[in-house]
Every structure is written in C-alpha cells, then in structure tokens.
C-alpha cells in the first residue's frame, strides 16, 4: 500500500557515511604522514635518530596545543585569530612578573592566567555583544600584541630561572620531552571532551545549526564562551612552553602562529564552516606539519620556502577529495 513511502529507505546519517568519510580522511592523513616519514628517512641520514625525532616534536607541540582548542572553536562555527597575540601578551606579563621577582610557580600562573583572561575577553565580545568572531579577534590580535609592544618597545625580557626553562627544554624520560607529554595528555583530554561527552555533542550541534541548538535547550552562548576561554587557556600554556624554551620574550614572539594553528585544524579535517571534525585528525595534521618542516629543515630548505609546502599541502589536501567527488559524479 504505502510502498512508495516505505520503499525509500532513509540513509542512517548518524552512523555509517559520516563515520566512514571521517575514517577515510584520517587514513588519508596517516598515508601522507607515512609517505613524508619514508621520504625524510631516505633524503637525510640524520632523520632516523631518536634525538632528531625528539627535536622534531618541538616544531609542532606548542602550536598543536592551541590547535586542539581551536578545533573545538571552529567546529562550533567560530574562530580565534588572536592566539599568537595572546602568547605575546602572556609572555610579556611573565617577563614583567619576573622583573618583580616572581619565581617559577608564579610565572606559570601568570602566563596561564593571562591567556585565560584574554580568551574570556574574546568570548565576552563575541557572545555578550554578539559580534562576529573573525573581526573581534582581528581587533584583539592588534590590541593584545599592541600592549606587548607598549610594555616592551624594542627591548626584551630574559634571564628566566632554570627551573622555569624546564617546561620548554626538559625531558620527562629518555628523549620524551615535557612538551610532548603535555601535548599527548591534552590530546587525550580534548578527544574525550569532544567525542565522549555531552559538551562535545553540543559543540557539534551548535556548529551544524546554532539556532536549532538554541531551541533544543543548548546554552549556545555559554558553550561558545567556554570554548573561547579554553582557546585562551591553551594559548597561555603555549606561552609558558615557548617562553621557557626560548628563554626570552620579545613583542614579536610567536608571530604567525595563528595561521599555522588554523592550518593544522583545517588540515586535520575540521570543516571551517563548523559542525564537523575530529581530534585524531588534528593530532595527525600536527604530526604531518612537524614532519614536513623538520624534514625540509634537514635538507637545508629555508623556513620561508617550507611555508610554500605547508600552504600547498593545505590547499591540495582540501581540494583532492572535492576533485575526486566531482570526478566520480561526472563518471
């Protein structure tokens, strides 16, 4: 009787297709990582060495920490371009605290605290005043780094205590650095948060349709505010690590980090339009960017030329599945 209606099976969108496309995206990333790894091992005799590989991780850990929180923010449909400026401000404030005789625990608290405050400020402007996040964070980007310039001018802070330096230079065990351990711990935390909790579910819901989410009882503004705070917090943590690793603060510290963190997120398969993405993808993308820059570095390729590879990789990895889909539809 009602064959017309029952005959047409609705695909179960919540399960298979989404999962399989995500899986295929991540397996594509694994493939890319393996290819680059093999290429690196052949192209340079210095690559396959536990200390080299350990050094390699320093290329991405700080940016990847930010990318973890940024992934959630982008999935919710917002963006934060001010993360590098937050690092600059947090680092400057740590330097300032040092001038007043702060010791290591205080320095860390200042760095993380300033990051959290900056994130809360962004979150307030976006959710409280209903402003577009891309413009707000372009503004706060100038504001935060501008304050660092006002405080520091053309000078720099240095002479951080050795116990503080451990956060950026220390090893937990053998070649495993503190930065790497911290990144892995946070990756696990963010994985659980995004993929295994109600909070994560709501982040996806907001990204897919924030009006529908609002009407389903999700407190959209509060969750977005929390996400901005988390991004600020991670930037503060990255500021502690980077300042400890470099041992000095200049107002131009971490310039360009925001674009690299966003590149990691997008390369990791997070939709820039919001609503889709996974932490596993972001971690893989961070690893790929670390492998590419380190491998090219071993070949004496200058950093600025590496950026061509990173930019090209970003566009190619996004374009390939689209081209493939178009080609399949035509066939």
């Amino acid at each position, binding site marked *: 009787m009602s064959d017309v209606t029952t005959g047409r099976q609705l695909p179960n969108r919540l399960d298979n297709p989404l999962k399989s496309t995500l899986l295929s995206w991540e397996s594509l990333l694994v493939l890319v990582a393996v290819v680059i790894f093999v290429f690196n091992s052949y192209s340079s005799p210095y690559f396959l060495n536990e200390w080299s590989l350990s050094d390699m991780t320093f290329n991405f850990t700080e940016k990847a920490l930010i990318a973890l929180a940024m992934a959630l923010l982008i999935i919710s449909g917002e963006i934060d371009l001010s993360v590098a400026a937050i690092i600059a401000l947090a680092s400057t404030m740590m330097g300032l605290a040092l001038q007043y005789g702060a010791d290591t625990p205080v320095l860390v608290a200042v760095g993380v605290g300033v990051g959290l405050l900056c994130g809360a400020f962004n979150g307030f402007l976006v959710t409280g005043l209903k402003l577009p996040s891309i413009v707000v964070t372009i503004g706060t980007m100038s*504001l935060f780094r501008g304050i660092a310039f006002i405080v520091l001018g053309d000078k720099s802070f240095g002479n951080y205590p050795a116990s503080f330096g451990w956060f950026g230079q220390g090893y937990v065990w053998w070649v495993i650095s503190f930065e790497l351990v911290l990144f892995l711990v946070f990756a696990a935390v963010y994985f659980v948060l995004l993929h295994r909790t109600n909070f994560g579910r709501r982040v996806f819901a907001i990204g897919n349709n924030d009006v529908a989410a609002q009407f389903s009882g999700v407190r959209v503004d509060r969750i977005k505010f929390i996400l901005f705070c988390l991004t600020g917090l991670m930037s503060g943590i990255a500021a502690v690590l980077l300042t400890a690793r470099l041992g000095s603060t200049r107002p131009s510290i971490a310039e360009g980090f925001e674009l690299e963190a966003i590149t990691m997120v997008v390369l990791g398969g997070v939709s820039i339009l919001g609503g889709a993405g996974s932490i596993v993808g972001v971690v893989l993308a961070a690893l790929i960017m670390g492998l590419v820059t380190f491998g090219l570095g071993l070949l004496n390729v200058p950093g600025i*030329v590496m950026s061509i590879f990173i930019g090209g990789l970003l566009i190619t990895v996004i374009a390939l599945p689209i081209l493939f889909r178009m080609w399949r539809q035509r066939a």
Partner: protein
Amino acid sequence: MKSLAKHREIWLGLAIVAVIILVTLRFPRFSQPGNLLTIFNDTSILMMLALGQMAVILTRSIDLSMAANLALTGMIAAMLNAAYPAIPIPLIMALCVVIGGLLGAFNGVLVWKLNIPPIVVTLGTLTIFRGLVFVISGGAWVNAAQMSPDFIGLQRAVLLGLPVLSWIAIVVAILFFLLMTRTPLGRALYAIGVNPTAAVYTGINVGLTKFMAFVLAGAVSGLCGYLWISRYVIASVEVASGYELTIVAACVIGGISIAGGIGTVAGALLGALFLGVINNALPVINISPFWQMAISGTAILLAVILNARGERRKGRVILKSAEAAHV
C-alpha cells in the same frame, strides 16, 4: 538602510576631523593643508587595498593573501626593473596589475570551481605567495641603487599640486565608485552578499561574481605592489608582512560588514584614512610608535561594536538564521 549607511560614514568622517582638531590644538602645524595632503598620500596605498578587500568582503568572502600578493608582484617589478631598466614604468605598472590579477584569479578559481572556503584558500596562498617571493629573489633584497630613477621617481612627480601616487589612488577610488554603483558587477557583489540564494534566482552567477571580486582584489594588490616598492625603495621577503589584517581592519572601521552585503567606497576610504591619520598623529603628539598597534586594535573593536549596533536596529531576526546558514 541607505540613510543609516550614510550616517555611519558621516560619523567616521567626524571622528577623523575630531582627531585632527585634537592634535591641532597642541600642534597647529598638523592641520596645515600641506601636512594633510602628506597624510592622504601616505594612506593612498592602504585606501586602494581597502577598496579591493571591500569587493571581496561584500560577497561574504575574505582575502588574506593581498599583502603577500603585493610583496610578490612588487618583487617581480623590482627585479624586472633592476635587470631591464629600459622597460617603461607604465608598462611595469600594467604588468603588475595583470600579475596581481592572475594571482587573485588563482584564489578565485579555487573558491568558484572547488567551493573551498575563501579563508582557507587565501590562508594557503598567503604562505605560498610569500614563499615564492623568497624563491624568485633567493632571499636577496632589491635596493634603491638597483632601481632606475624613473621607477622610484614616477609616483613622487607632482601633478597639479598632488603627487602621482595620490592621483592614482583618486582614479582607483573613482573607478571603484563607478563599478560599485553603476555596473551590473557592482550590484551583483552586493546582491550575493545580502542573500546568495535570492541572487541565484535573479540570475546572478554567484561563483563567477566571487571570482571577479578576487581578481579585482588581486589586480589592486598588484598595482600596490609596484607603488609600495617604489615608495619605500626596498623589495624584500618581509615587505608588507602582516599587512593583510591592517587592510581588513580599514574595511571594518569603514563600516563594511564582514557578514557581506554592506559597505561603501566612501566607508573603505574613510576607514583607511582613519588609520592613516592616527598613525601620522602619534609621532606628532610624542606618543611612542609602539602604541600604534594597540590603538588600531581598539579602533577596530570600537568600530565593530558601533557597526553591530547599527545593523541590529534593523531587527532582522529571521534573516539572521538564514545568514548564519550561508556564511
């Protein structure tokens, strides 16, 4: 809606006048015509870039690669001039417009044909263009000694009391005004920004229009590439580094809505002028140039807060969700 937009530009104009008056109270020479013309000339490049960016932002897109495009085209112009000083400068300028336009077309094709979000595309091309500057120059600088006197002198030549650079900016501004208000393309840029779905039903090719916006932004960046290099007489990888966000800032201060569809040529020009006046006023009133960045950041935030209030007065609650779905 139109009167509201007009108000916004009047307020911005008044803000600029207020800054000029405040500075003049302490330093009367600041508002002498000669100094004001210097500020205008200093801001010419930013004004043109803001106009190009406006065309893109109107279509709900963004072009983060403009400064890198400028650096790449400028380096090509400088190297051409250093190698073949005989090439006439107008030809080099034309070439810059074409090269910049092609780089913009590359952005445009990716947005049009592959539907990749503009922010991702131009984030990628930003790093690619900047890297290419290094590749073609080998990291070397092109300095004043290698450039021909014409290459440096053309934009400084004074014509009817104004440097050629100012005249170029004025001509570009007039062209943009005509394009935005008197041509189908200009209308289409606004239409797809206000409502892309409705634009499709009125027969506008949304993809092609976005493509044209990127070509425009690229062509302007290319032209500014030559102008920037010949103004600061140095071509290097670092030229205009980070300037892409200053361009967006000028647009935002000028009242161009990042959500698309709202903005005028006058707004873009005033937004750029506002930043120009501030930058020129700081050294005069003895504030360290290190304050510049924080002040322009504050200006951006204030502008976006004020603009958002203006836009909300329309109370388009239903359309807001439609907008959100298409961004």
